[in-house]
């Protein structure tokens, strides 16, 4: 009884108001558009049995409009150099860093939706649920990067994961798709468990669920209540996030889920899931292990995080590149290359931890810059793969690309540009991305990471150029059918934009690097 009255007599708790909703407007736009797509689908007629070319274009149109509005809002916030804003009783924190990652997520969603029309129509599963799930996943990813409370981290991570599990298995009459979805679900669930245990330990060690409060207490020289528990919690959290980004010992789901899912979904996973998870990884790493931020508070946490992330980076770069060499399927090869790129991004995270607040280097500028060309390359490559094939059948082996240059020169050229950029050959965007990341690593004293990165990049040239050689130089084999290709305006547009953007970013990297430096964590 007493307890009830103390609650009633307590001074008015701070409440959540309209301001809070205004702060996360891009997320709300994505959620609303997703729901709209779901309802809109009910009013669109089922297609005739020979599918009409236009298909359910209003679905794509509405959902693309949603991503455009969300992207414009995020761009506006970056352009206005908005101050960090915290809302929902400190559970959400919006700053330029979260805006920049959010922008990459929205870019991934937009490309996925633009290219998805062809893939869905070819398989006869053009349903509003697909568009809704992509938009819901994107909304959760933006919230994930914005979360400043342990509860929020877990909630948004689960929301985004579940949407992506379903997207992976979306083509549910295809054995490989449901198998990929199942493996992703089981290993994703396992990693969520580790992450949750890590968050519980962090709470147990610091007695607070608010990341900003925890970091503030540590930076103020106040040691955590239990230092070893904090280190254990951070280690488990790192394992959970390493699963999500697909770093080496925790990569088992990556090739299977990437191969099982439709190629457009794979592109979305490779870009958006990774960008959002790296956003949180970087935030956690800099909050608890940054050179200045948590200096006197917990040196053990900093040491453990530095060692863990550097170790992951080295083994991930080596494993991803070596495993990609052995693949015969182009899609699986790109999946292993995505693991390799996780390694390069982890190098960026390590150098971000060395940056001192207020110093010359902004934490994570290299990582942010790298994410942008990486997003363009992955989206372009997977959208191009999604065009190859007939009906519900995909052609994904490297051999099936033989003779593509003769039959479909535009597609071959786009894929050529993207592969050259993936390999990091100047003057493409991929070259500058690697240059900035490795330069940051050397400047912060982690030259051994840069060395491993450069050596493995040289190895990677071989498997990226294998695709190019197959397209341009090898004769078409007798047994294999001619490369066939189905693409309509949306998919072609997405591929063209990706390829042109890769070249443009490669020619003018300075502007983009300045934006990344401005948006880096402070």
């Amino acid at each position: 009884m007493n307890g009830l009255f103390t609650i009633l007599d307590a001074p008015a708790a701070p409440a959540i108001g309209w301001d809070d909703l205004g702060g996360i407007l891009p997320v709300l736009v994505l959620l609303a558009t997703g729901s709209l797509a779901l309802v809109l689908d009910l009013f669109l007629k089922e297609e005739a049995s020979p599918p009409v070319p236009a298909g359910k274009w209003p679905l794509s149109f509405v959902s693309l409009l949603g991503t455009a509005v969300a992207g414009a809002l995020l761009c506006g916030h970056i352009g206005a150099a908005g101050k960090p804003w915290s809302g929902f009783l400190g559970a959400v924190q919006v700053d330029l860093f979260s805006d920049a990652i959010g922008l990459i997520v929205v870019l991934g969603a937009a490309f996925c939706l633009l290219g998805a029309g062809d893939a869905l129509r070819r398989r006869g599963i053009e349903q509003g649920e697909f568009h809704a799930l992509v938009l819901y996943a994107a909304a959760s990813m933006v919230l994930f990067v914005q979360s400043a409370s342990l509860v929020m981290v877990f909630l948004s991570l689960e929301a985004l994961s579940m949407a992506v599990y379903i997207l992976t298995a979306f083509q549910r009459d295809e054995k490989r798709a449901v198998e990929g979805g199942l493996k992703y679900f089981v290993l994703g669930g396992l990693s969520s468990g580790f992450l949750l245990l890590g968050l519980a330990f962090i709470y147990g060690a610091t007695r607070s669920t608010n990341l900003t409060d925890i970091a503030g207490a540590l930076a103020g020289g106040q040691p955590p209540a239990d230092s070893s528990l904090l280190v254990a919690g951070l280690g488990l959290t790192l394992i959970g996030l390493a699963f999500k980004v697909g770093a080496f010992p925790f990569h088992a789901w990556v090739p299977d889920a990437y191969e099982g899912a439709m190629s457009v979904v794979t592109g979305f996973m490779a870009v958006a899931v990774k960008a959002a998870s790296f956003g949180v990884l970087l935030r956690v790493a800099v909050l608890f292990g940054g050179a200045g931020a948590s200096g006197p508070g917990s040196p053990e946490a900093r040491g453990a995080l530095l060692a863990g992330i550097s170790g992951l980076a080295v083994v991930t770069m080596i494993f991803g590149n070596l495993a990609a060499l052995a693949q015969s399927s182009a899609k699986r090869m790109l999946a292993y290359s995505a693991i390799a790129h996780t390694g390069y991004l982890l190098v960026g995270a390590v150098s971000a931890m060395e940056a001192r607040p207020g110093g010359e280097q902004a934490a994570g500028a290299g990582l942010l810059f790298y994410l942008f060309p990486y997003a363009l390359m992955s989206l372009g490559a997977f959208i191009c793969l999604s065009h190859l094939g007939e009906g519900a059948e995909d052609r994904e082996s490297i051999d099936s690309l033989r003779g593509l240059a003769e039959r479909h020169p535009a597609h071959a050229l786009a894929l050529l540009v993207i592969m050259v950029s993936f390999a990091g050959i100047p003057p493409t965007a991929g070259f500058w991305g690697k240059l900035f990341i490795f330069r940051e690593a050397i400047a912060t004293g982690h030259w051994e990471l840069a060395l491993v990165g450069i050596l493995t990049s040289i190895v990677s040239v071989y498997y990226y150029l294998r695709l190019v050689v197959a397209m341009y130089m090898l004769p078409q084999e007798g047994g294999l059918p001619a490369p066939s290709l189905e693409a309509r305006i949306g998919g072609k547009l997405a591929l063209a934009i990706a390829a042109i953007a890769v070249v443009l970013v490669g020619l003018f990297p300075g502007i983009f690097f300045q934006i990344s430096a401005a948006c880096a964590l402070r």
Partner: protein
Amino acid sequence: MIPHLSLSFCLYVSAALFAIGVYGVLSRQNLIVILMSLELMLNAVNLSTIAFGRAFLPASPPDPSGPQVFVVMVLAVAAAEAAVGLSILLAVFRKWRTTHAGRIDMLKG
């Protein structure tokens, strides 16, 4: 008077449950048992969160509701995860006619 449970006892129980869950996910072949093990892991963590919250109560943080809200949220997530997991499982069973994890093996390499 409720008998007193120490924090470390609750943490040991939670760690044991979590370890059983991890073992189940990694070693069992039946997909339904794997799903159960995933749920066990989440609930094991709930136990330690709530134990921490109870132990910190006398130290009176400004708002003691943090861990309790956390646990309620995790429960909701666990329910959603079960729904998604079972529907994926259903899709798998329709195509593969088995719930034996070892026999679902088209993706390799």
